[in-house]
Every structure is written in structure tokens, then in C-alpha cells.
């Protein structure tokens, strides 16, 4: 079921950029010293907005980044307004004419410049550019960012894409824990009451299903839908135990993420 109606495709893609990709700046600032150096002492907030409803605000402070899902656009120091989802999508994909309207913070050139630098670094980690590949934390950071994006994207799809909602509809409730064996990355997803919640690190109770990727490469291939998962489970490259139907359903939604964005 890969045919997606174009309007829905654009809207969902924009939502994924705002709700799954932008929050990954939290991971970048948390784990990358280079990113912390770029930010330095600077304190600012930036909002990406499409229309009046869809927005995402990042707060940069004390060398950290915080994504607040409920934050208001007017709370941001810099407000970038996109006229359409398509314009926002192009911005994130570096395609064509895409300059947003700076509704607020036009004079905060230093902040915008900081954000651009952080964005370049973010993209370098995401794509594995040679410039960052020497960083000893590169692999774990890359996998952390990508898996984080994928998990948040899964939540967005379950909430806003019909087929993903259907996939999860009859899935047993439970807590799934994802980890990367050699890199120490861990994140959890909980499916409860028709809602998906997710977070980094170990969950506060024993998970119902555990999905352990042997290494970062395996995890990245799963995120990119580039691996035969059934074989990988059989060979032990992915260790799976517990409530398999939950992992299965999450896997089906996971596989849909690359239809929209490349984590």
C-alpha cells in the first residue's frame, strides 16, 4: 500500500519534518561536542510554521536544545513562516526556491547563523559526511539521530496516516525497547490506549518486547528499509524477544517512514 494521495503526502511529509526531524536537534546537542561548541553560550528559540496550525519550536540554551511540542509560535525569538507544506518540504530537502517569511526575529542574524551551522552539522551526521566521520562518537550519534527520527516518525504516521493507524489498531498494547548492541543506544516506544509514546534510554519498567540491533550498521539499514529483517533475525544480527506482534506492527509502520522522508 504505497500509493499516497499527493496532498496527503505533502502534508504528512511536512509534519514529519517538523515533528520527527527537528526534535532530533535535541540528540545532536546532547551528544555532539562539536554542536555544543557551535552553540556556545547562545540562547534563542526558533519556530518553523506552516499556516497557523502546524508548527515546531526549538529552544537553544545552556549548550542544549529542547523541543517543546506544545510551545506557541509567539514564544519563539525567530519565527519562520512557510506559505505551504511544499515550501517547507523543499527547505528541508534543499530543493528549489524555498525562502520562508521571517515573521519575527529578522534582526537576530547571529541566532539564525548559529542555527544554520547546527543544521549543516546535523545533516553531516545524518548523511555520514567525511567531515564528521572521524568523530569517535560519529556512529553512535548517527544511529541515535536516525533511530530517534524513525521512532518519532512512527508516532506521527500512526496518528495521521490511515494505513499506519489500521496497522496498529488491533496490535496488543505494550512497551518496546530498541537498542544497538555495540553502540549503547537505547530508546523505547509504548503503545497504549491508542497512543504511541517514545523516549530515549531505558524505560522505567521491563519492556514487553526487545529489539536489539547487533551494531549501528544493522540499525541504520533497518531504518532505511534496506535489510532483509527476517534473515537478520534468524542470523542473530537482530535479536528479538517477547511480544513479537508489537514489534511486527511497529516494523510495518517503520517501513513506511522512508516513503516520506529519509531518516
Amino acid at each position: 500500500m504505497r500509493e499516497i494521495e499527493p496532498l496527503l503526502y505533502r502534508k504528512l511529509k511536512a509534519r514529519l519534518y517538523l515533528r520527527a526531524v527537528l526534535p532530533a536537534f535535541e540528540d545532536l546537542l546532547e551528544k555532539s561536542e562539536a554542536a555544543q561548541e557551535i552553540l556556545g553560550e547562545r540562547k534563542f528559540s526558533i519556530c518553523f510554521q506552516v499556516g497557523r496550525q502546524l508548527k515546531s519550536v526549538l529552544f537553544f540554551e545552556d549548550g542544549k536544545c529542547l523541543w517543546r511540542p506544545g510551545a506557541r509560535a509567539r514564544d519563539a525569538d525567530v519565527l519562520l513562516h512557510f506559505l505551504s507544506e511544499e515550501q517547507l518540504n523543499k527547505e528541508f530537502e534543499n530543493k528549489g526556491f524555498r525562502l520562508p517569511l521571517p515573521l519575527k526575529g529578522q534582526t537576530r542574524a547571529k541566532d539564525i547563523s548559529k542555527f544554520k551551522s547546527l543544521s549543516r552539522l546535523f545533516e553531516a551526521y545524518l548523511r555520514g559526511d567525511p567531515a564528521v566521520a572521524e568523530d569517535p562518537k560519529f556512529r553512535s550519534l548517527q544511529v541515535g539521530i536516525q533511530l530517534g527520527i524513525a521512532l518519532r516518525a512512527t508516532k506521527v504516521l500512526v496518528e495521521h496516516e490511515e494505513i499506519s493507524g489500521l496497522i496498529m489498531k488491533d496490535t496488543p498494547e505494550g512497551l518496546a525497547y530498541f537498542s544497538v548492541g555495540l553502540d549503547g543506544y537505547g530508546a523505547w516506544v509504548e503503545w497504549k490506549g491508542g497512543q504511541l509514546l517514545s523516549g530515549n534510554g531505558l524505560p522505567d519498567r521491563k519492556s514487553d518486547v526487545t529489539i536489539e540491533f547487533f551494531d549501528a550498521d544493522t540499525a541504520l539499514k533497518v531504518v532505511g528499509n534496506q535489510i532483509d529483517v527476517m534473515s537478520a533475525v534468524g542470523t542473530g544480527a537482530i535479536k528479538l524477544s517477547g511480544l513479537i506482534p508489537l514489534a511486527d506492527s511497529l516494523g510495518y509502520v517503520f517501513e513506511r517512514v522512508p516513503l516520506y522522508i529519509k531518516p
Partner: protein
Amino acid sequence: MNARYSKSKALFARASEVIPGGIYGHSSPVMTVPGEFPYFASKAKGCRYWDVDGYEYIDLMCGYGPIYLGYQNEEVNEAAAKIQRDGDCFNHPTEYSVQLAEKLTELVDIADWAVFGKNGSDMTSWAVRVAREQTGRKRIAMASHAYHGIAPWCVPGFGGVIAEDRSTFDKFYWNDPESLDELMASSGEKLAAIIITPFHHPAFGDSVLPTPEFVAAINRIRNEYGILLIIDDVRCGFRLNLGGSHRVFGYEPDLICFSKAIANGYPLSACVGRSSLKVAASKTFLTGSFWNSASSLAAALKTIEIAERDNVVEALEEQGNRLIEGMLELGQKRELPLQSSGPAAIPYIRVADDHSFHKQQALCAAAAEKGLFLHPHHNWFLSAAHTEPEIDEALQRFDLALCAVQREPVSAL
């Protein structure tokens, strides 16, 4: 991966290079406990099989159902071999197809005719088409989480499936007459058929027998709305009643699909139906390159003959009960409470209050190591080769597995 299964692992690595998934479908390692179960088999006899690493197992899965009298049953094999010596796959059907159709119409009360295929999916999908041909209606109702095969309308998962494949299928909940009534209110006049298994046997869940109210609701709806009732007896057929599992529960089916046990491991499926559907059935094309193969039909005739002669249904129930009682008792003794569901011949026993299946998976992995093949998430099957001594031996091995997961010393046995 458990080092015990080194040859399985090596073979799986080779398989993964040339076969998508390495092993696909219900036998995939994903379905059991990956790394803690054998992946490949080498030989079998009676109620036992051996994996490629040479380990022997008392098998409570029976090839996921087809092994009904036991592996390598000599009488069945001889019946199949006899026809194979004269040829097997001909331009024409053989007399065996007529004989088997006659036999099924004699055995199954609602059956006035029979057709044959190779797998359960062949028959369930064909039966759906017959129902549409007969009624001129599009829609089909099925229970949520029921398994009816690998056709796009019913296959688990979403790979290669488009919304249109399932757009004429409605779901209701098992043992929930209200959900049936709701469905009838919205789609009753549009339904060609309801397809159900005799009891609900979802993977990753307990088996659930139908309540009398549910059976009554199904029969009432069939009669009231002129909807055909298809019983998918692929998994249960011949294990609960030789005349069809509907007789155990009181359904009034129009079409029944059989496979698995029918020919003791030889590939065969069948659909039987009422005379009122014979014209529609004749118009609903079905065929397959290997469907005239006579050996499977001969094997089925012999299998049914033995089942009648040896009262296999009763034997399965008796030994199934022995197994269930024994396992539950052992669970209590080793302080790992277990629960059983489903009929004795097709039981499913699992660790109680184990929502995540972690304990169940550990128990079944330990059982495999002790030479007992149990499935952690799927109902089990008994065969006529599971006689009292084999069941008792299975229980001994099960106790060793319980001790292993409870970390009790074996001397405590």
C-alpha cells in the same frame, strides 16, 4: 545463537544468501525463539523428528498440522508409492479423485460434492468465489485475527497488499454476537458469506471455543440473510470429528475447506459443499498444475481409512487430555503456573499471566533443548503416533525444561 544448533545456523546463513527471509512463512525463525530453536529438519518417524544437527525431538507441532497418523506412516506411504510406481501427475485425473470425493460425501453430512487442491489457501479463496457466484453479492465477513491463508484478502501483514484487496471484507469479533449484529445492520444484505474457523486459534493468543450463543447467532444470520457459511476446517479437520468440526460445535455450514491432516503429510486440500451450490461451484474455475497428482489422493483415502479403523479422533482426545493434565500438574509442581486452551487434540498450553511471552519463549526454548518441540505462540497438534508412552516421555522432557527455566536442580525430579 545457541551453539547446539550450529548446522542449522550455517544452513540458515547459506539460505539467507539465496532465499528471501532465509526461511519464509510460518517456519521462519521469527515465529519461534530465534537462535534458540532448530531451523532445519533432516528426518522424522512416528511422533519424532531430527534436526540437521542430529538432535531428536518429540514433536507436538506435527509439521504444523499435516502429520495426523505420525511421520512416515507405512500404510499411507505404501498407498501413495503404489500409484507413484505407475505414474502420478497425468493429463487426466485418476479414479482416486472420484473415490475420495465419494468418501468425503459419505463422511461429511452436508457434503454432496468435493473438489481438490493442494493447500488450504486454494480452497478458502475458491470457496469465497463460489459464495459470490451463488449469491451475486460481493462482501465477505470474517473474524478479526482469524487466519485463512495467504491470498491477498486474508494474508497476515501488508506486503504487496493493496487496499482494494480487502475492500470487500468485513470483520467481526469472535464470540461477540453483538459485533455480528452490527455488521448485519450495515452490510447484511450485501454479504455473500461468513468464513470462520470452527474455533478461534489466533497466533500469539489463547484458543477460544465458540459459545453456544455465538454458534446460534452465526446459524441464525445464515438463515435470515441468505448468507453462506464457509467453515475453514483446514487446521482442525479430522482431528475433532471425521465428519467435520462443525458437528462438534453445531454450525450449519454450506461449504467446508479441509487440508493439513487429510493426507498425513501429502499435499492435498479439499472443499466440500451442499448440492444447492454445485452449479455455482461448476462455474467457478479452479485448477493447478499438480492438482491431478494421484498419490496425495490415494494417501488421503488410506489416511481416512486408518482414522476410521483406529478411532483416531478418540485417541487424539485421550492422549491430548493426558498431555494437558500432565503439563498443568508439572507447572504447578515447579511453581510456574500454566494455562491450557483449545480442544485436547489441538491444545495450546502456555505460561499463565505472561502477556509479553518472555517466560513462554524461555520455556519452549528449554523444551527444545530437552528434546521436546513445542511452539511458543501457536496451537499445537497431536497425532495418532503420540501414544501413552510417548506422551509420558514428552512430560518427562517438559519437566526437565521447567526445571531449567525455574533453575531447579534436575535431582529434584
